[in-house]
């Protein structure tokens, strides 16, 4: 029995050791002047905004470092999910242990990672915040050199104005939020919808999760069969809502509106199953994060715009995709550009 346990332990050790050696061997030995950049978003899913942001970040860093003859190493780590605040804090701590030169942080929650911002600031590591363009309030006592993102508020309002033109006053609407908080509120823009004459009959929180949004949509379809418009506050939740509407055989009768225009949402728009989604270019935002690092490294801190905002558009057709979407959104996923016309 002892032998068996010993053998099993050795196998475990070899497996771990081998994997680590493989990982270490896969990376070329870093030059001493290699820039070390830590990147932690809530998810590394390539189909998600965060994955595309990373594409833009890498593109920007590649272009700059190749031209400047520099090398960089990007440590990309994400927590288990969007609500794993504690895990993201641990990742930041580990980045600091690794001695990274820059940290690009897309927080699991803007307010929820205050502890992480403090820690990074105290270490004097230049910080870039992604996905948000609002600088931290002064009374927080923390700062970042750039907020590369967009206004969630503007996105919510843009969608509210868009749908207001399409439906008569009194139309029943449901809003599916992500996790409770500022971003959900701003993207949901409930007050705007009400002011525009909509009757918001159902609201639910689906934690930015597709399955939870599917369940929420099923519930709302049962409780409020007269709903005509569903506003989903994230891409994944929009896809979940569309699938639930499809499953209920109500495609064409209920319009689902998404948020972010990821490739899945774009496919659904082309198919006519998602009415529209607001859009901001994640590739451009990632490049803006890389630009801040470049400017800082070159000692041009004065040129770094603190709040970097990308404009919001609405994608509701194939033509709008070709006109507004960054081709990397497709080519980065191994898809042809422009996409096939339906």
């Amino acid at each position: 029995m002892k032998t068996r346990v010993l053998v099993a332990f050795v196998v475990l050790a070899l497996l771990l050791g081998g994997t680590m050696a493989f990982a270490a061997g896969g990376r070329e030995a870093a030059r001493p002047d290699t820039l070390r950049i830590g990147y932690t978003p809530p998810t590394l899913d390539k189909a998600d905004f965060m994955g595309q942001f990373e594409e833009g970040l890498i593109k920007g860093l590649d272009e700059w470092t190749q031209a400047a003859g520099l090398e960089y190493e990007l440590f990309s780590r994400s927590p288990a999910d969007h609500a794993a605040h504690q895990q993201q804090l641990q990742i930041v701590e580990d980045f600091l242990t690794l001695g990274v030169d820059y940290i690009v942080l897309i927080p699991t929650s803007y307010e929820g990672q205050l502890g992480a911002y403090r820690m990074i600031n105290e270490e004097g590591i230049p910080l870039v915040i992604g996905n948000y363009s609002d600088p931290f309030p002064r009374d927080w006592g923390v700062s970042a050199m750039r907020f590369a993102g967009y206004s969630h508020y503007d996105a919510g309002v843009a969608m509210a104005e868009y749908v207001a033109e399409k439906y008569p006053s009194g139309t029943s609407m449901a809003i599916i939020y992500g996790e409770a908080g500022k971003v959900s509120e701003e993207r949901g823009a409930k007050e705007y919808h009400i002011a525009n004459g909509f009757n918001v009959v159902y609201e639910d929180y689906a934690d930015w999760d597709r399955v939870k949004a599917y369940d929420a949509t099923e519930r709302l379809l049962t409780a409020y069969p007269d709903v005509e418009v569903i506003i989903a506050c994230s891409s994944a939740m929009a896809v979940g809502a569309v699938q639930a509407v499809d499953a209920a055989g109500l495609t064409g009768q209920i319009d689902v509106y998404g948020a972010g225009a990821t490739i899945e949402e774009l496919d659904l728009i082309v198919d006519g199953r998602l009415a529209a989604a607001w859009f901001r270019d994640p590739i451009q935002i990632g490049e803006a994060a890389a630009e801040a690092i470049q400017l800082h490294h070159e000692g041009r801190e004065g040129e770094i715009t603190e709040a970097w905002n990308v404009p919001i558009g609405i994608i509701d057709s194939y033509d709008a995709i070709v006109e507004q979407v960054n081709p990397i959104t497709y080519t980065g996923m191994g898809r042809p550009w422009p996409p096939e016309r339906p």
Partner: protein
Amino acid sequence: MASIVQTVSGKWKELGKNNPDFQIVASTFLIFLGLFIIMAIGSDVFLRPRNITNILTQSAMYVVLGVGMTFVLTTGGIDISVGSMVGIATAVIGDIIVNHGMPVWLGLLGGLGAGLACGMFNAAFITFLKIPPIIVTLGTWTMFRGLAYVYLGGTIHYNFPRSFIAIARGRFLGLPIPVWIAAVVFIWGHYFLTRTKTGRQITALGGNEEAARLAGINVKRLRFFVYSLMGFLAGLATIIVTARLDSSAAGTGAGFEMHTIASVVIGGTSLFGGRGLMLGTLMGVLMLGVVENGLLLAGISFFWQRVLLGFIFVSVVGFRTVREK
């Protein structure tokens, strides 16, 4: 020299033969040591004092939760609502300290009280209505989380006073305060489970409830105690995590239950009751902490990290099960 080695080896074998718990803890320790060495080889920054402090600080909260969970599992029960208890407790702490601007000590009491209340709620259903713990805590897992969202009403409390943040970031004798909190809780838990009459009764209850009852043990009282204690310790862990994050959101604590249960089971505490090993729990928590940290520092991709963590869990528990058979 050879005779000393023989003597030590002989005593070790004798100790193991007479004490299966010792064997389990020793084997867990050896696996932990093996993983620690592998991680140290895999990353040149792993052994830096700062990184070791990181691992200890990150593990502190799970040690506190693990002590509570060890008691619960030893009785043959389970509590999968601990993560949601953290959600409620953090909401209460944030509301008291940030929203109402009340003194920090009141927020701490509120957090501990909220955890204790959640634990007592579970305990009442499990003890008096005799509903299986997995059913009760599955229900309260959702219910407590929902209550946390209702309580916070879509807001997040943040920017706590310095005196509160100091709980996570302050140091005593060079070590972060959460490590000291975890150490005190662990020592108390170990002593209570192994050296007190009530502790031994808890083990007896998990081993054979009927026999324990016939032996005059107040089974209801014990069960109520362990689930209430779990809640109280969840409140204590919440203080650590809230101070670390400097924010309180209703979603905080999601997934803590699985991490905690996994740590305790890796440490050798039986899922079926009758065997609780606090030392094993400490090893289990540290093992997961070391592996998570080491894999990240070694540059293993995030996706592989999840695979390896799951594999280690299944392997360690699998070896032990095979060994026991």
